């Protein structure tokens, strides 16, 4: 594991054949300079830094969880945790037409993907893919939403991460993880939601598998009222 701080020259043996320079690395002439603190990662000709952060900066293609804050004309104004609000056109929902508008109110939560992040403008979101299918995106009904750090979100949905699998052995729940650090989930009862929330938040700094299983087991057996 190599850590880079802003201003460090990225000098990795595999970096010469990397054609795609990703997050956290700036190219200045011949040299590559880190612009954010993070751990070096490379995969199939791509290189990037894994940055730990709590503040989301929108990137095209990210799936995020957004809160509807207002309705202006053809757009819903959304809070995705960035400096400025994001927008979603009401036709970018599955089954929506000019006549048939989606029925969203202020405070509703939607799962959407970012498709336009032109600088100096508001980010634009969509709830449908290129075939106009929702594929899981759209409004999230009921449940509970909370924030964790961005790297914890990325870790949770990593295929090799055991956290959600382990929780799944004890609880029955559904979960949506947004890349902007928001997690929405729903379970059978309020008690289960509280327990799962606790486990997810506490698992952020847990590395070992045994420790993780203990954490989930403790969360499962303790009662919520104490």
């Amino acid at each position, binding site marked *: *594991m190599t*850590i880079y*701080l*802003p*201003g460090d020259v990225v000098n990795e043996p595999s970096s010469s054949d990397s054609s795609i320079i990703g997050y*956290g690395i700036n190219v200045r002439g011949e040299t590559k300079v880190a*612009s*954010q*603190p*993070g*751990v070096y990662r490379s995969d199939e000709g791509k290189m990037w830094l*894994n*940055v*730990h*952060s*709590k*503040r989301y*900066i929108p990137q095209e293609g990210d799936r995020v969880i957004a809160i509807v804050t207002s309705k202006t004309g053809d757009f819903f104004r959304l809070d995705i945790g960035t*400096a*400025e609000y994001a927008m979603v056109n009401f036709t970018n929902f599955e089954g929506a037409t000019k006549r048939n508008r989606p029925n969203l109110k202020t405070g509703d939560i939607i799962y959407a993907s970012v498709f336009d992040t032109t*600088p*100096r403008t508001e980010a634009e979101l969509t709830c449908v893919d290129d075939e106009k299918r929702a594929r899981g995106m759209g409004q999230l009904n009921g449940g509970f939403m909370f924030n964790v*750090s*961005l*790297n914890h979100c990325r*870790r949770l949905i990593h295929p*090799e*991460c055991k956290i959600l699998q382990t929780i799944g052995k004890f609880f029955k729940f559904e979960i949506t993880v947004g890349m902007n650090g928001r997690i929405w989930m729903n379970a059978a009862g309020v008690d289960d939601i509280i327990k799962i929330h606790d486990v997810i938040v506490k698992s*952020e*700094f847990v*590395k070992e598998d045994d420790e993780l299983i203990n954490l989930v087991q403790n969360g499962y057996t303790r009662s919520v009222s104490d």
Partner: protein
Amino acid sequence: MVGRLREMRCEVSFLKNADGSASFSQGATCVWASCSGPGDVHASKANEEAMTLDVSYRTNCGDNKFHELNNIIQSTLSKAINLELFPHTSAAVTIHGIQDDGSIGAVALNGACFALLDNGMPFETVFCGVLVVRLKDELIVDPTAKQEAASTGRVLFSICRGSDGGPEVCSMDAIGPWDFEQLEAAWCYAQPSARAIFDFYRNVMQRKHSVDEQ
């Protein structure tokens, strides 16, 4: 000549509600620093070309509207951060002096850098602060409050890491009479300390990122 830094301790992600924060101490001098941003900005403060940087140093008591440390922290931060990357946003950097046992300016700068590193915001280079005082024609790096009070001159270096990895003066605040040779000598003493602080940044961040070793 005393050229040693006191023991440094740091805990990052210390404050729950800030995007990035740190509790940093050097000897008995301690600060809490937080950095939130890039975030929403009030229309009257918004700048269409660059990020608005809101720096405030706060002491435990008294009027906290203005503080002489704000100037050097503000100028260091605006050099370290490429403000044009995030126009029409603001970043708030708040440093709270918890306990002052000398070199509070240097500790505040180091704390601010830790808060920025914890935030994960893009910036150009890491920076640190080193205070050097002159006490009876002797130069002391990172003095205690007692040494600082008895000193005849003090100079606070705010140091950026240059492109070659070595320390470079970013800005500086000198009090008392200093001639050129003395300043040069003070700078020579500050450089190894700056290197030690940069290494400390790396160690702390390494520990923070050790969670995704898998």
